[in-house]
């Protein structure tokens, strides 16, 4: 069970003066149950890539296989693909429209052909998953706070019970606690339900903290693909393509240059703390 991309290329306005290659020969395998961070500067092709994964955009050339089936094969059921691969857009709260929270979350499962009763059951489960209790169900989604609205929107996708959840910058504009809460909930879903998560993010710190694999996009191509500590080792190259590494990476590399016997590949606060303390211990300091 996985998503496989083979030589996927996407060209805007082909054969005209405005021709732009948004994706160039992208080859990827997204295995079941992975938690992936997708990074890249604005215009690097991240959003175009994720829109391919649920068939919203069709590749100009190349193949995409979902669970072994070619999604461009004649007769392939795109509706089924879209319910298996859930996509949460940027600022998804702008897409809320129903009179109350429960009806809004029911919209997806009802479209999948479920009965009112079954849809409500799914919606309630999804709302609990994102930490919204029963008292919110009858409220208007427009009267909620920014973080709560975003949770409702994410619940709307979860209620369709996707196998793959793609979130395009789910924390943009949220305060630090709201950001941590949403990411913790997504991380919990990934662990408990085993769903595959693809997190598109501009925050290197968030990516370092949560994901197991990072895909770096640049000018429509995959620039790096690996574990956070491997990818952020290339922090100078990342800067040259408009990205950055987590603050911790810079601190660790400078410490190493200044003679610290510590792991310069640490990318999170927790890892940095341990390796710095260890460096002091190795020098005989009692901590």
């Amino acid at each position, binding site marked *: 069970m996985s998503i496989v991309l083979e030589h996927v290329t996407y060209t805007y306005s082909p054969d005209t003066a405005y021709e732009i290659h948004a994706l160039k020969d992208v080859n990827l395998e997204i295995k079941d149950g992975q938690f992936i961070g997708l990074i890249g500067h604005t215009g690097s092709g991240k959003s175009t890539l994720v829109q391919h994964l649920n068939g919203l955009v069709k590749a100009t050339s190349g193949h995409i296989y979902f669970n072994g089936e070619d999604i461009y094969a004649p007769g392939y059921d795109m509706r089924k693909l879209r319910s298996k691969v859930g996509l949460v857009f940027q600022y998804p709260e702008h897409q809320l429209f129903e009179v109350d929270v429960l009806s809004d979350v029911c919209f997806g499962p009802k479209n999948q052909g479920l009965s009112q009763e079954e849809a409500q059951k799914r919606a309630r489960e999804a709302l609990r998953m994102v930490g919204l209790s029963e008292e919110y169900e009858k409220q208007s989604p427009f009267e909620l706070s920014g973080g709560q609205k975003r949770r409702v929107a994410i619940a709307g996708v979860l209620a369709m019970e996707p196998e793959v959840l793609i979130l395009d910058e789910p924390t943009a504009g949220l305060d630090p606690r709201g950001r941590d809460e949403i990411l913790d909930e997504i991380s919990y879903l990934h662990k408990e339900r085993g769903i595959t998560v693809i997190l598109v993010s501009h925050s290197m710190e968030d990516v370092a903290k949560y994901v197991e694999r990072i895909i770096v996009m640049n000018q429509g191509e995959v620039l790096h693909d690996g574990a956070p500590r491997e990818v952020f080792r290339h922090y100078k190259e990342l800067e040259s393509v408009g990205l950055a590494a987590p603050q911790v990476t810079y601190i660790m590399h400078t410490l190493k240059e200044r003679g610290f016997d510590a792991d310069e590949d640490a990318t999170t606060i927790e890892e940095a703390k341990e390796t*710095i303390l260890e460096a002091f211990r190795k020098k005989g300091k009692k901590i």
Partner: protein
Amino acid sequence: MIKADKLVYNYRKYDEEGREKETIRAVDGVSFDVQKGDFIAVLGHNGSGKSTLAKHINALLTPSEGTLWVNGMDTSDEDHLWDVRQSAGMVFQNPDNQIIGTIVEEDVGFGPENMGIPTNEIWERVEESLKAVNMLKYRHHSPNRLSGGQKQRVAIAGVVAMHPKCIVLDEPTAMLDPNGRKEVIRAVRALNQVEDITVILITHYMEEVIYANKVLVMDDGKVVMQGTPREIFSQVDTLKSYRLDVPQATLLAWELKKAGLDLPDGILTREELVEALCRLY
């Protein structure tokens, strides 16, 4: 430059028959004083009243109670409305909602043109404003082909061209990638330091706050903390209780200190942390 005295703002909610249902006090008795040339950062969780407060500074909202003076003018006095708006320019989160021109230089010229500035002076202002945000070479470009950080700098240039004494930026980097954030913050700091424009920056990125000379923390419509970045970020636990964070270097220093390393309080930058650790090593 800007002075608030016990400022209160109530949002009123109405039911279907138009009767007043409830009022929500978004800003609750806020007093502060901003001097010319200050760089003020405002922190606070979503719904803490930051944006409501910011909208008072260029009179998009006027106080329900209390008074706000901008450049000596009471913002509630309608005779001064346009002077207030000219003194205090505002930049919002989404650059796409703020750009109207089809060419960068036209967009930047829109503000001064509306003010009735003579044409040759408009062009001078457009040029100096684009230069101030390092976007002069894009003057003949179409805004929709620019990156987020570039668009946001064009939006800032549009405000600068109106020669404001103060710029209020409401989460100007929330939608940008790391490079875009860096460019915008660099432009904002240059306006503050070179052009001596007073800056009020609302943000959720703690790393952007360390350049401010004063930080206001809002919670529940009130200003709950006030001080230099160093003073504010020394109080990690208090900030966390307000749903906020500290810069990563500060957080790492705080964790290491808790584990027994003898580090000073209020470390803000990576460089400070590295120096402090090297002294101990």
